[in-house]
């Protein structure tokens, strides 16, 4: 420290960082309800060309307690398009004093392939400090080089509950003639735009967001907090150039990726004609070819580079007999084409209860591909990764949402069918006999329709009979029981399809025997499990996602010599959330139980929450009401 000036220059940033990251400088309002405080975030993206960009990320968190620990970890993802030039992390104690520093070479490196893929080029580097003296602060810096642009990171300053944000900033720098596209949510300030030479800079900033708590049945967290979607206009990856300013343009890009990948080998062409030439209607032909696809292919996921967006060609699928959703859908379109039918490739965001895409902002919001055939009156939808569904039915995996239909005229948003309360049925009849020891034997017939059959349909496809029985047993909530017989029949002739299930089971001690009395719950299998936690002050709206109707009819033959002592009165609930009705009748030797439930979906105001808690509580209680039989003296 001979040079005084040098001393100042060197020590200034140190002093600043100590000041910045001391816990004392966090306002109390940000500590309330928080496990972690995002102290500072700065994401800077510099677009060099439609294909190339540099991303600088600097992020610092103060972890206040054990529940915030996950935010102290850091993961840097990379693949064919993204290289991590540098990444480093620093750990500070509560006074802002540096404890540890790690560099790129210190971080562990792993494959990102995961169990759902056979192989991909995804990898990641990860750092964990495992520090446990709270509070502590971590800061990470990362520089990435992008060579192949497909999207930009969105700006979501508050991306977790119980996280407060002190300061977050997002900067994007682009050539003047490059159009940056964005859309703000829960945030009204437009970006600050400055110009410097041939560059234009857009800056968003926010500070002091207090932590938010979770609430049950609330909309997805991100939709409740300020955020900005940001997307490219012109982009290019692996030599494929496109523009995503409109859905039409974005669709045209995907068409370019699928174009001329539909050639089929001669033997497959021949099979297509053998299967379809003698069929009369389009629908019959579609069904025959879909069935051919289901019988001859299986799902295998291999993703390298642009292969994440571009399907393997139809010849590849013809010979290997496998592919991912893109490859199988492209193959399906090729089969249809050979039969003279115009099938379409549709890109979609799949997932039961997945959040709807933002339909007025064209960027890649998708993770799946399906296929459809628009006919004169209706459209036939095809999920090409499933082996059992009938042509024309989409499960809750892709139903009721927007998808991007891709063809020679570009892209068009299309909406998939919705299955409602009158489609999603579970109709059950139980005929049971109870003996004096409380043991029950029952025949159970159930018809599951539309979305109520989806999970079972997957199980029938992917579980062995052994595993099926195991799962069946784990789902039946009875004390000690045995399934003696079970069988399934899939009804695929009508859309939506249904499955008939028949089960025979015996349940020992089903009814509790206490001396001369029998305690019997007539609702053997369909008891509502939902019990919502009461909340002092509900903030967010309520989102009920599934819509269905259950009808249960139960007949229990009871041993002779007993008479009813007590039984529940009829219950009737009618509310905006659904309808519920149940009744018990007792004859000389039988209990007759009937239960009807309609559940609606929709968004409801926060003020309705207490009503909703009561609604579920009433059903919960009613489903557990018991009948008491007493021996005749």
């Amino acid at each position: 420290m001979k040079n005084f000036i040098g001393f100042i220059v060197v020590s200034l940033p140190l002093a600043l960082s100590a000041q910045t990251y001391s816990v004392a400088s966090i306002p109390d309002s940000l500590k309330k309800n928080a496990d972690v405080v995002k102290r500072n975030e700065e994401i800077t993206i510099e677009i060099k060309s439609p294909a190339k960009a540099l991303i600088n990320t600097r992020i610092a968190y103060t972890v206040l307690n054990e529940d915030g620990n996950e935010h102290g970890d850091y993961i840097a993802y990379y693949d064919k398009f993204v290289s991590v030039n540098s990444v480093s992390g620093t750990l500070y104690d509560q006074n802002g004093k540096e404890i540890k520093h790690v560099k790129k070479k210190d971080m562990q490196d792993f494959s990102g392939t995961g169990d759902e893929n056979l192989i991909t080029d995804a990898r990641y580097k990860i750092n964990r400090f495992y520090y446990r003296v709270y509070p502590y602060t971590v800061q990470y810096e990362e520089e990435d080089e992008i060579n192949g642009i497909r999207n930009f990171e969105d700006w979501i300053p508050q991306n977790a509950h119980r996280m407060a944000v002190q300061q977050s900033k997002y900067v994007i720098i682009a050539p003047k003639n490059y159009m940056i596209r964005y859309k703000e949510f829960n945030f009204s300030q437009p970006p600050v735009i400055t110009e410097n030479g041939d560059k234009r800079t857009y800056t968003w900033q926010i500070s002091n967001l207090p932590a938010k708590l979770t609430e049950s049945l609330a909309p997805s967290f991100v939709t409740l907090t300020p955020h900005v979607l940001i997307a490219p206009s012109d982009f290019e990856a692996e030599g494929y150039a496109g523009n995503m300013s409109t859905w039409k343009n974005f669709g045209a890009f995907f068409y370019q990726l699928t174009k001329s990948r539909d050639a089929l080998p001669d033997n497959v062409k021949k099979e297509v004609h053998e299967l379809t030439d003698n069929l009369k209607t389009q629908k019959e032909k579609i069904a025959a070819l879909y069935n051919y696809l289901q019988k001859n292919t299986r799902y295998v996921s291999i993703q390298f580079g642009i292969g994440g967006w571009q399907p393997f060609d139809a010849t590849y699928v013809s010979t290997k007999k496998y592919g991912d959703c893109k490859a199988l859908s492209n193959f399906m379109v090729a089969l249809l084409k050979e039969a003279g039918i115009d099938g379409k490739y549709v890109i979609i965001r799949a997932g039961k209860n997945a959040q709807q895409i933002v339909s007025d902002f064209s960027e890649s919001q998708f993770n799946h591909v399906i296929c459809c055939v628009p006919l004169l009156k209706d459209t036939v939808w095809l999920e090409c990764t499933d082996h059992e569904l009938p042509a024309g039915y989409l499960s809750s995996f892709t139903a009721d949402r927007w998808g991007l239909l891709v063809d020679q005229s570009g892209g068009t948003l299309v909406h998939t069918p919705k299955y409602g309360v009158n489609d999603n049925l579970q109709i059950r009849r139980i005929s049971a006999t109870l003996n004096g020891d409380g043991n029950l034997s029952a025949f159970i017939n159930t018809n599951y329709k539309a979305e109520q059959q989806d999970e079972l349909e997957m199980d029938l496809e992917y579980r062995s009979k052994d595993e099926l029985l195991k799962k069946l047993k784990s789902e039946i909530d009875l004390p000690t029981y045995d399934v003696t017989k079970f069988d399934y029949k899939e009804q695929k002739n009508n859309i939506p399809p249904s499955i008939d299930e028949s089960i025979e089971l015996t349940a020992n001690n089903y009814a509790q025997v206490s001396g001369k009395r029998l305690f019997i719950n007539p609702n053997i299998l369909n008891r509502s499990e939902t019990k919502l936690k009461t909340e002092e002050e509900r903030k967010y709206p309520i989102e009920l996602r599934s819509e269905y109707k259950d009808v249960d009819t139960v007949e229990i033959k009871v041993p002779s010599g007993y008479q009813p002592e007590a039984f529940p009165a009829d219950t009737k609930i009618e509310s905006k959330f659904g309808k519920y009705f149940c009744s018990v009748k007792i004859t000389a030797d039988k209990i007759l139980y009937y239960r009807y439930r309609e559940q609606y979906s929709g968004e409801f105001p926060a003020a309705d929450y207490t009503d909703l808690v009561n609604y579920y509580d009433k059903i919960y209680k009613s489903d557990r009401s018991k009948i008491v039989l007493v021996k005749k003296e």
Partner: protein
Amino acid sequence: MFKSTTLLSLLIFLGTCLCAQEKPDAKFGKISIADFNLSTSKVDTSTAAIVISDIGECHFESVGLQFKVHFTHYKRIRILNKAGFNAANITIPYNDKGTGGQHVYDIKANTYNLENGKIITTKLDGKSIFTENYTKDILLKKFTFPDVKEGSIIEFSFAIESGVLLQLYPWQFQEEYPCMWSEYSVSIPKAYNYLTLKQGYNPFYIDDETYENEFGFVVQKHHWVMKDVDPLKRENFTTTIDNYVAKVEFQLSYVTNLSTNITQDVLPGWPKLSESLMGFESFGADLNKNNRWLDEDLQKIVQRSDSKLEKAKKIYSFVRDNFKCTLQQGNGLTTSLKTIFENRSGNVAEINLLLAAMLNHEEIQSDPVILSTRNHGFANMVYPVISKFNYVVCAASIDSKVYFLDASEKFLSFNHLPEYCYNGELRIIQKGNTTPVYLVADSLAEKKMTSVFIVNDDKSPHDISGSFQCQYGFYQSNTIRKKVSEKKQDDFIKDVKNSFENEIDIQNIGIDSLTQLDDPVTLHYDFAFKNATNSDIIYFSPIIGERYKENPLKSSERRYPVEMPYTSDEVYILDMEIPSGYIVDEMPKSEKITLNDKDGFFEYMIGKSDSNIQLRWRMKLNKATFEPAEYPNLRDFFARAIKLENEQIVFKKKK
């Protein structure tokens, strides 16, 4: 319904073809139509795939002056239905680093389909074999079979060359699919003596050991076959299925120089192992050093201590409360003790070795103890191999008493080990000397005591109200401490409220001893069943709080032991004032049932006076481990206890 045709055809063959039970005639590339008419009598056909043949071979080849091990693996599988498609995805892990680098070669794979009476063969193309850098050390060869359908036969073979002689390739005879024929042949030159570890409850069909002369060397030849092996089934109360799966493993024990006949031990035995462990910088070398870097901190930690025991307790608490355990397993140091101290974190071995060093620094004699945890399986104690141990704790000797300490578990108290350490033998490691210690689950006793008082309250005549108190055992207390710390106390309390089926009002809820780790946790609250006495008859379930709702032993039979984490003694006491204006119409009968004379009992004692009902329910299990033969009795015991737990008392309004 689905696949029923496949199943049906299998069943037909079951009747007609009981004969061919010898080795299946399966060789790579050799397939006939008859192979599709799979005959099987003993394997379970309700499965997704059947392994027709699984054959491994392992031998030595000399390369210059060194031996290399060659392992070849051939497997043929019949895929019965779509659930079996997973069997077509193959992953081969290997490690190509270092002197013993492994090399995978000759990967071949064929798919056979029977179409219109003809066999269609589809070969795997070389471009579809991928190599994945899984971690820094482990690589994966990955491929999937082409042209796979329901009914396909798939087969693959590959070879690995390896310079690692310490362990030979192990062989597992049992897996997730049933296997008709599993065979392993191993040839070992006489110069190498391996320890062979065999386990499992399935019998060998062939279990041969011969010696042959090959190229002037005496070669030991093992040959094992298992036939009709059932698939692995996981059940409740199992430490780890790895202890019971049928397999063989090898560990190099000593090497003989054939010209001099001098043998050199590779497996050192305990004295030598402890000598070297205590000499390794990655284990014990620094435990007894001065470690002056600890001076200042330790002085602060132990200040004002009167005795060694008090010092030890302070050091233990300091490490437990201030260090983050990054991994609940480990058998050595990955960095220096000093770095671990500074980072305030380390794996379980690092934390407890540091603890030992800190205790030694204060002249409290402390040694590392190595063990294999229950979920890691049993370690061979006669021929110890360090890789078979996955956990290190610390033994401190104070005034000729030994205290076992584990500072890696947040809620553990002094001189307690986690229940998963109770896995048989542990070894205290000193330089050149070891001491065995036996810790078994049967020696752990968890006591739980619940008492409930119900009194009539004139202010709310329509409710049944009272107070509940439950004192938990040591390990259950720790579980609650963990839950409360993970979920926050408010959420834990909400969960307690929600666990009741009936409408209940809970007030004054409290959890005691959350931070006094030496004391058991007590949960207590006041409750009121609202409007319970509004009708002429009251049905009252006298067991309040947690109870078994279903039998934890689900399968009707069991092939390996039931291993509970500890023995248990649960007592439930109820003293209840009969609701005013009511009489007891009916109540359960007292009953006592014993389990195998002295393995356990439960008793249900109930009595009433004019004003009160008293109930005492006790379930005691004197053992934690039960053999398969004892299983039916144990299952029945649970079933009867659960039935009694669910009985009710009936009150009637006085007329």
